């Protein structure tokens, strides 16, 4: 296991840097000479644009900009070879020194913005995962117990529908129904966006109200696949020999199903949930945009459109690190949960 872990970690490093390089190139080649945050303003002079680009370091060759961001730039400067980089520019510590740079739009430190917004995203995705698991287990079990019945068929149809439905469509539909229409009909209604109420909000009830719809939309997708999985896993488990043996020994149905069969049927669900761990950070983007949920996904989306190079690269790098870590964690968890699994 230790050798396996070491090898995985070694592979992670080029993966993360590959992500940064690709993001960097993509952003620069699609946006060209654009000045981040530029509005078409009649008072803007070409000299202003030149000066701002120079201030932001955007006029340097691409390779220099990339090395600077990665942190190699400051290492080169530290050993006195700054001339190699065209010298004069104030070279900041970069990624290797733990500095993700500053946003080109508003100058705030990228890492600080990410850390500020990350809890919101985690709150949303964790809630969705728990909701998804909590609902899919009973639904899957009941489907398995009543296999072939109308209940089972309806649940199957709903699962397929849930898998196919686009998140933004479902989100908008829920907003229209539970916010706008319920309010128009005089019923109690849910807030249509954001994480908290701007004034006097922030308490648990307020946060829950805002969390319900986005979490449900996100959970819907998990629900549909996981309930199918629990169902088939349960059916398979119930046909195992030890279940028949238990019943033959006189165990009650309830005990057989809920104490023995259920546990073994649901254990592999852990793998599926583990597969979602990497998506904890990056998976909620569509829902965040539709509901205006102030998380990492929304930040990345808004800043990508405004070509805030450093912010977008910071977020994708951060997400890449978490995804790689999440994948590793899921694999390790799998080995822990299922003793039959061994890694060479």
């Amino acid at each position, binding site marked *: 296991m230790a050798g396996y872990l070491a090898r995985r970690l070694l592979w992670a490093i080029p993966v993360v840097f590959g992500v940064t390089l690709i993001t960097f190139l993509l952003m620069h080649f699609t946006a060209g000479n654009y000045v981040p945050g530029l509005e078409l303003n009649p008072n803007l002079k070409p000299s202003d644009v030149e000066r701002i680009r120079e201030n932001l370091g955007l006029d340097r060759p691409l390779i220099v900009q990339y090395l600077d961001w990665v942190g190699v730039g400051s290492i080169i400067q530290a050993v006195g070879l700054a001339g190699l980089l065209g010298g004069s520019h104030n070279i900041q510590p970069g990624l290797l020194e733990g500095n993700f740079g500053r946003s080109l739009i508003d100058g705030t430190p990228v890492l600080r913005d990410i850390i500020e917004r990350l809890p919101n995203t985690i709150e949303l995705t964790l809630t969705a995962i728990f909701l998804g698991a909590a609902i899919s287990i009973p639904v899957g079990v009941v489907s398995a117990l009543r296999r072939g019945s109308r209940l089972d068929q309806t649940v199957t149809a709903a699962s397929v529908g849930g898998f196919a439905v686009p998140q933004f469509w479902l989100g908008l539909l829920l907003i229209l129904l539970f916010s706008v229409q319920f309010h128009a009909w005089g019923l109690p209604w849910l807030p249509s966006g954001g994480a908290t109420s701007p004034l006097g909000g922030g308490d648990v009830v307020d946060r829950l109200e805002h969390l319900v719809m986005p979490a449900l939309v996100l959970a819907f997708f998990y629900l549909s696949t996981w309930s199918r999985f629990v169902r088939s896993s349960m059916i398979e488990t119930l046909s195992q020999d030890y279940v028949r043996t238990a*019943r033959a020994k006189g165990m009650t149905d309830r005990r057989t199903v809920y104490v023995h069969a259920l546990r073994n049927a649901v254990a592999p669900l852990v793998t599926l949930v583990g597969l979602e761990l990497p998506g904890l950070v990056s998976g909620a983007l569509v829902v965040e945009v539709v509901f*205006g949920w102030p998380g990492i996904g929304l930040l990345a989306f808004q800043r990508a459109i405004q070509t805030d190079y450093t912010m977008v690269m910071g977020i994708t790098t951060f997400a890449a690190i978490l995804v790689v870590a999440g994948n590793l964690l899921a694999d390790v968890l799998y080995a822990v949960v299922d003793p039959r699994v061994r890694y060479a």
Partner: protein
Amino acid sequence: MEERSGVPDGDFERFERFLDDWSRRDFLKRVGGAAAFASLSGGALAFLEACGGGGGGGSSSATTPKKGGHVTEGWAFDIKTFNSVLTQDVYSSLCIGMCLDPLLNSKANGDLVPYIAQEVPKVASDGNTYTFKLRKDVKWSDGQPLTSDDVLFTYNLIFAPEYAAVASPRRGDFTQHVANISAPDPYTFVVKTQTPYAPFLVTHGQYGIMPKHVLGSLAPAAINTADFNSAPMVTNGAFKFVRWDKGAQVVFTRNPNYYRGAPLLDQFVYKVVPNTTAVANQLKTGEIDAGQLDPSQVDSMRTEQSIGITGFAVPGFQFYMQNLDPSKPTGQIFQDLAVRQALYTAINRDGIVKTVLFGQGQVANSVEPPTSWAWNPNAKPVYKYDPSKANQMLDQAGWQKGSDGIRAKSGLKLQFTMLYSANSPVLSGIAQVMQENWKAIGVGLTNKEIQFSSLVTQITDTRDFDIILVGFNWTQDPDESQLFGSKGTARGGFNGFDFKNDQVDKLLSDATTTTDPAKRKQLYFQYQDLMNEQLPAPILYFNKFNYGVNKRVQNYGYGTFNQYGPRPWMKDVWVTDGK
């Protein structure tokens, strides 16, 4: 499980029977009921809150202004900075205007009013000197008095050579026109322009003044990233900054010591909302009290009992630029004036405003916006939508229709690609109408959507386009040299379509170097006639903005030139229910 075990298990059997019953009943009915129950219990909490807070349902609209309460305004964009010389977008200007006052401000019609300055200064007899006498009663929120030191500091950020590292988009224009700035005594600020520059007060007199004792000690490059830019804790405006939850909202609270009189509202919230549809939705649910309406939502919002709608013309417009550069493929074609005029005649601009804009716009018959004091309502020539006349003009100019229906002359075909920004239903709609209109006169148009950032690069740099469809906003001053003056053809300028006309240059230059409004108006009238004839970048229409405001909010005086930036009417806003 079909078999039952021999051991009696009452609970489990009951559960089994329950499951049997369930599969017989209408599953959907139960699911629907469960969903309603879930939402009910989720919303029950909201309901209880609303019940507790709503009280007697204040519907009586008292006419005496009451102190207290808050207003939440919803926008589909987050702000970027609180630094008045760094800001480039109107949303940041809006929030800056809540807490940082400028020397001068604007009324709805664009007239200047004095703010920190005691009066709007008249330029001295030399035509270059502006002397601002400051009010003596303006205080910062930390108790310090505001003096000309702060004003000089703020303006030095865009003028002094040592502050060149400050990434301000205003420095270019300011340093080009201003000779020097000084503060001879604590309540006087003097600016000398190099030559008479008529737009000076309007263009550079409205920056929020920032505190020297907070920012003065920072190195110039550090000003770009100062904490003040995201959390201005020391302010001088009608409201004080409380907090900025990035991507969510900005919260302001009343400044009780405001020199023009404390605002009636306790708090103001700038709320970031996902998109313009969400603005309309949240207006309906009451989560926001005010917000800008998309043209497509105006009619449906009129049916909402609780929302009042204000609409007014703005100096924003849509136009298309034709690449006149002779070295570019279309340059030769667009040099022909008859082609430019025929193309414009063939566009059904009335139809565009009616269908694409839902009527929320005004067809343009001049390059100056109708909101401008320099607007000539009778600019000539006037182009009415007339496809047959357009066909005639092209025939007479020698452009014959080929076998493919496209007109051609000496090997050049009237076939163009038009670029415009992606993700805009309005622009897509306009592009489609133009395509159809021009097909009817034998001109082929291919539409291509690109990212806004690439579009800007095309306009200011690469410039290898045929036609670009884009929107723009004029300011209060009628000067348009940035777009139509030949200086703008330099790399980085907005005259990406290479329009160089000596007469236009002279008119524009004369109009900015004389400070006599009557003379300027005359020059601009001539300028508009000339531009109508030349049509390098014809304007389709000028926008009309609409705002929805909840009827509980009084005195919300949105106007053309004071909707962003400091709002003179903001301190008189009050809410009927006091919440």
